[in-house]
C-alpha cells in the first residue's frame, strides 16, 4: 500500500508541471485563426495538409509501440505497459507544448550559441505563424508544432520498451518528463533547430540519431540501471521470457511501418512530389529488406524462422533508412535494410550475452540501427561526410546516455525505480494497478 501511495504521489507530481504554464497562447491565437483564409496559395494548402496528415500517421505509431511492447512481454504486465504508453503520449505532447518545442527550435533565442536555446514557455504563433509566411509556404506554426510534438513522445516510448516488466510507473513517468522535456529537444536543437551539428554538415533526415538513437541511449541507461527481469538470466544461461501475444506484436509493427510514411514522408516538410515519393520508396524497400534479412539470419542462428525477429527486422530497416531516406538510392536502401535486419538479430544476441535485458529489442532496433542508419548516410549519401555523421552520433550519445543514466540513478536512490521481486512475480498489472488485462482468461504463468 505504501509503495502504491508513494508511486502515485510521484506520478501526480509529473502532472502538475505541464498543466501549469502554457500561457502566451491565449486570445491572440484565436484571433489569428479568425483572420487568414482568402487568397490562399494552393501549394501552401497542400504542403500544410501533408504535414498535418503526416502528424496523424506519426500519432498512430504510438499505438504501434504500445501493441508491440505489450505483445512481446508477459500478459501480467499488459495493463502497465498500455498505461505507460498512453501516459507517455499525453506527457510528451503537453511537455513539448510547454517547453520542448521552444527548446528544440529556439529561433534566435540561443543562449549558448548552437548548443542551447530557449524561446520561452508555451505556444505562440505570433503574427505570421498561421500564414504562408511562417515557413515559406510549407506549413503553419501549429502544423509545425503538432508534427514535431508527435515525434517527441517517441523517444520515451523507446525507453519504455527496454524497461518493461520491472520499472516503477511513477519513477518512469518522471523520467519521461525530464527526457522528453529537456534532453530530447536540446539534442534536436543541435541539428534540426539549426544548431552546431547542422553547421557541421551532419545529415539526419528524419531522426535515426536524433529520435531513435537518443531514445536508444535512454533505453540502454534504463536497462542497465534496472538490471534484468527475474528469471531472464539463470546460471549464466538465457531463459527466454516469451511474449504473450504475437498478433499484438504484429499489429504493432505494421502500424509502426504505416506511421513511418508520415515520420519519413512528413520530414520532407513539404508535399514535393519528387522527394516525398522518393522517400516512400526508400523507406519501403529498406523495411522489406530488413524483414528478409532478419528472417534469414534468425533461421541461420536458431534454425527456425523467428517471428519476433522478422518483426524487429522491419523496424530495423525503417530505423536504418530514417537518417538518409532522402539521399540514399532505392538499391542502397535495400542494402541499408539488409544490414539493419542482420544487425538487429546480432544485437539481440549480443545484449543477451552481456546480460542487458531488453524485452522488446528496443536497443537493437533503435540504438544499433539508429547508429547504423546515421553512418550509412556518410557511406552512401552523395556529398555527405562520414566524419560529420560520426560526430553527430557521438555528440548525441554524449548527452543522452549520461543524462539518462544519472537521472535513472538518482531516481533509484530516491523514489526507487524497480518494483519489488514479489510484485514482479505477481505482475505489474496487479501490483501497480490492481487490474488484470485479460479478465476471465486463464493465463498460466510460471515465470
Amino acid at each position, binding site marked *: 500500500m505504501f509503495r502504491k501511495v508513494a508511486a502515485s504521489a510521484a506520478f501526480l507530481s509529473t502532472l502538475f508541471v505541464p498543466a501549469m504554464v502554457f500561457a502566451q497562447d491565449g486570445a491572440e491565437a484565436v484571433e489569428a485563426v479568425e483572420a487568414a483564409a482568402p487568397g490562399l496559395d494552393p501549394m501552401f494548402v497542400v504542403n500544410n495538409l501533408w504535414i498535418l496528415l503526416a502528424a496523424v500517421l506519426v500519432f498512430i505509431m504510438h499505438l504501434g509501440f504500445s501493441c508491440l511492447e505489450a505483445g512481446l512481454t508477459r500478459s501480467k504486465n499488459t495493463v502497465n505497459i498500455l498505461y505507460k504508453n498512453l501516459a507517455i503520449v499525453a506527457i510528451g505532447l503537453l511537455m513539448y507544448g510547454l517547453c520542448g518545442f521552444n527548446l528544440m527550435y529556439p529561433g534566435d533565442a540561443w543562449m549558448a550559441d548552437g548548443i542551447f536555446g530557449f524561446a520561452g514557455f508555451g505556444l505562440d504563433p505570433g503574427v505570421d505563424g498561421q500564414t504562408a509566411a511562417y515557413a515559406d509556404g510549407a506549413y503553419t506554426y501549429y502544423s509545425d508544432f503538432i508534427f514535431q510534438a508527435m515525434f517527441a513522445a517517441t523517444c520515451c516510448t523507446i525507453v519504455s520498451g527496454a524497461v518493461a516488466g520491472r520499472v516503477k510507473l511513477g519513477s518512469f513517468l518522471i523520467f519521461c518528463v525530464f527526457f522528453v522535456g529537456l534532453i530530447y529537444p536540446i539534442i534536436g536543437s543541435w541539428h534540426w533547430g539549426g544548431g552546431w551539428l547542422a553547421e557541421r554538415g551532419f545529415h539526419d533526415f528524419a531522426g535515426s540519431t536524433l529520435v531513435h538513437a537518443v531514445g536508444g541511449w535512454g533505453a540502454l541507461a534504463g536497462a542497465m540501471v534496472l538490471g534484468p527481469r527475474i528469471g531472464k538470466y539463470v546460471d549464466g544461461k538465457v531463459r*527466454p521470457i516469451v511474449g504473450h501475444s504475437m498478433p499484438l506484436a504484429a499489429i504493432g509493427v505494421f502500424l509502426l511501418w504505416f506511421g513511418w510514411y508520415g515520420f519519413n514522408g512528413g520530414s520532407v516538410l513539404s508535399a514535393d512530389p519528387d522527394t516525398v515519393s522518393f522517400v516512400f520508396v526508400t523507406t519501403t524497400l529498406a523495411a522489406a529488406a530488413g524483414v528478409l534479412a532478419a528472417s534469414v539470419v534468425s533461421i541461420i542462428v*536458431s534454425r527456425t524462422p523467428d517471428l*519476433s525477429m522478422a518483426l524487429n527486422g522491419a523496424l530495423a530497416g525503417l530505423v536504418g533508412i530514417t537518417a538518409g531516406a532522402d539521399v540514399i538510392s532505392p538499391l542502397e536502401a535495400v542494402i541499408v535494410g539488409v544490414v539493419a535486419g542482420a544487425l538487429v538479430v546480432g544485437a539481440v*544476441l549480443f545484449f543477451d550475452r552481456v546480460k542487458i535485458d531488453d524485452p522488446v529489442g528496443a536497443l537493437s532496433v533503435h540504438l544499433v540501427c539508429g547508429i547504423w542508419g546515421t553512418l550509412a548516410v556518410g557511406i552512401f549519401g552523395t556529398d555527405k561526410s562520414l566524419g560529420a555523421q560520426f560526430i553527430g552520433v557521438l555528440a548525441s550519445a554524449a548527452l543522452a546516455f549520461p543524462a539518462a543514466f544519472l537521472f535513472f540513478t538518482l531516481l533509484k536512490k530516491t523514489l526507487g525505480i524497480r518494483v519489488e521481486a514479489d510484485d514482479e512475480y505477481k505482475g505489474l498489472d496487479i501490483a501497480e494497478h490492481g487490474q488484470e488485462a485479460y479478465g476471465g482468461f486463464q493465463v498460466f504463468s510460471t515465470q
Partner: protein
Amino acid sequence: MKLIIAYIQPERLPMVKLELAKAEVSRMSVTNALGAGAQAGFTETYRGAEHEVNLLKKVRLEVAVNEHFEQRTIDAIIAGARTGAIGDGKIFVLDLPRCIRIRTGEEGSAAVG
C-alpha cells in the same frame, strides 16, 4: 463407485467421447492439462534463446461410475484414445466412497449416473 481419471491426447477427445457414448457413459468432466511422460518434448526458440518444453498439452477426463461400469469405461477410453504411439496417456482409478447430486441431494449409485 469409482472415479476414473484419464489423461489423453487432446485430439483424441472426440473419439473417446464417441466410445464412451457407445458404452453408455455420457457424464464426464474435462479439463485441459499439461503432461510430462515418456513422450519427448520440443525445443522452443524465442529471440535467439532456446528452451526445452516437456510439458505437453493433454486433456484430463474425470468420470465417476458405478463399479460394474468401471471396466467398460476403461475399455471405451482405451478404444478411443489409443494410437499406439508414445504419449497416448494413462488411466487412474480411485475409489469413490460418496457421490451426491446437488440438484436433488440424491446420494450413491443414483447420483453417479
